[in-house]
């Protein structure tokens, strides 16, 4: 309770600011609509109103301010509108038995989740394999590590449109493949860098101890380096899954995609339905939250079982 209360207060404050911002954001289109349907608006004419600030408009048309909160295509929807849209395209459709229909956000989230998952799996495996190579080969360490670090400073998503076109040029029909490659690419480097420091985390004394036991290199890997790297692994997995989700969504943005949360955002943008964009954004946020929370739980359980509970905190 002591932890939850401040968070709830902050969330309530954010919702409050959002709700208050709706009026100034939407007042212009609200007044335009009201004037068209015959209400008296001061000053008259959309052109004249461009000269007046939104605050003055609100002060001079106090009766019409509530209209800002009931726009069909608002510049900024109210939290309530977003929640309604979200429920209409998820829960309500699921209750109807149409959870996997094309219009359902659950369907699009499922598409996005699949690509994210495969990309995450691919990127993580390659990252771990690369880290093992770097830790055990001095040449690989000197050649690859600087590039791995530099590549983290590069906006890799710029590659996304090209990978999609490349995939279609090569005749890969399945749209999930290029998206998964982009997510794999984005989560590869954080995992690689995290695992390298994890595999190197055992102290020299611990490595020496194994040497006095005349342990083989593979025993040293399985019994010391790999267990020691687990806390680092989970930390980088959490960064990696968030990056993989961003990769998939960006991969769905270029024109042509029709399925997935990114495509919903794009279609909402093109057809001028802001509520659809906002609902898709919330779905993406929930997806990210669920994935990170799941990894967080897995981390706690694993570390407790390994007797590393202190590292989990």
């Amino acid at each position, binding site marked *: 309770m002591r932890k939850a209360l*401040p968070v709830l207060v902050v969330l309530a404050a954010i919702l409050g600011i959002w709700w208050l911002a709706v009026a100034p954001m939407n007042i212009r289109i609200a007044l335009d609509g009201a004037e068209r349907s015959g209400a008296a608006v001061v000053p008259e004419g959309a052109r004249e109103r461009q000269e007046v600030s939104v605050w003055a408009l609100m002060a001079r048309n106090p009766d019409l301010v509530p209209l800002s909160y009931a726009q069909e295509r608002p510049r900024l929807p109210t939290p309530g509108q977003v929640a309604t849209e979200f429920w209409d395209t998820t829960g309500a459709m699921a209750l109807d038995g149409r959870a996997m229909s094309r219009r359902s956000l659950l369907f699009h989230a499922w598409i996005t989740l699949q690509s994210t998952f495969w990309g995450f799996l691919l990127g993580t495996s390659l990252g771990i394999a690369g880290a093992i190579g770097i830790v055990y080969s001095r040449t690989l360490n000197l050649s690859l590590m600087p590039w791995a670090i530099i590549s983290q400073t590069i*906006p890799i998503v*710029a590659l996304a449109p090209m990978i999609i076109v490349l995939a279609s040029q090569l005749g890969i029909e399945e749209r999930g493949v290029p998206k998964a490659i982009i997510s794999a690419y984005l989560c590869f480097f954080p995992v690689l860098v995290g695992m390298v420091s994890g595999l190197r985390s055992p102290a020299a004394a611990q490595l020496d101890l194994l040497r006095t036991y005349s342990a083989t290199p593979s025993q040293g890997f399985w019994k010391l380096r790999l267990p020691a790297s687990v806390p680092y692994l989970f930390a980088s997995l959490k960064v990696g899954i*968030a990056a993989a989700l961003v990769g998939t969504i960006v991969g769905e943005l270029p024109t042509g995609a029709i399925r997935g949360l990114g495509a919903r955002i794009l279609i909402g943008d093109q057809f001028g339905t802001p509520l659809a964009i906002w609902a898709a954004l919330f779905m993406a946020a929930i997806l990210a939250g669920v994935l990170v929370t799941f990894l967080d739980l897995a981390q706690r359980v694993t570390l407790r079982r390994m007797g590393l509970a202190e590292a989990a905190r």
Partner: protein
Amino acid sequence: MTAPLFFALLFWLAAWGVNVKLANAPGRDSLGVRIVVPLLFGAALIVLWEGLVRHFEVLPVILPAPSVVWETFLASTEILWVDFQQTVLKGALRGYAIGCAVAVLCAIAIDRSAFLTRGLLPVGNFVAALPIIGIAPILVSWFGFDWQSKAAVVVVMVFFPVLVNTVQGLREADAMQRDLMRTYAASYRQTLWKLRLPAAMPFVFNGLKIATTLALIGAIVAEYFGSPTRGMGFRISISVGSLSIDLVWAEIAVAALAGTVFYGLVAFIEKRVTFWHPTNRK
């Protein structure tokens, strides 16, 4: 086996051999080796790429050879410079400056209330993991097609990582040091300015460094949703559409260079500011 492939494989093997020698030689920890080995590795990769493209006669619409990319780069420096100005100098840098400044000021304001800090840290950490890039179309429709909307996307993207890191950094000064300031009868302002902000700098710079990459990503991706007829994201999506992949690679090279230099600059300033920190002491 054709000549280009043979040469490329030979170069790759030779470079790898030299790297193995260098990496296991007595002087392996010297600065020269640390610079030469990765450069040689990178060069070998590029030569291999060139050789493979020439040998298999890969269509330039799929993967252009590095030499073609280089020629395109030299031939279109004017376009690249205009795009660089639009995306990096106008969109990313201005957004970065505004976003980071606002985030640091917010962190200082929040820090006065322990209650707010406890509430905002989890929320900020959560938001930092979200795919914020998705708000780009909304901000483009709010702020128009020009750089203002790109800067707005960048502000939102860099805000939370910098905020969270700064708030954490401001807690860094320990009780002993704060007590010392109190015995000097230092005011809140003096304590903040002379003790807590300097102590927070390693954390602040950590956030600033994460934000450099985010700023470029935000500025580039936001251009996919509409931009004036210039900008790196705009050029990439247009060139992909017209299958001039060599120009895309040239833009990506510029983006990579800009990202590295931007990060390097922030890291350089960090070294100057946090000279007292153990990791920077000689």
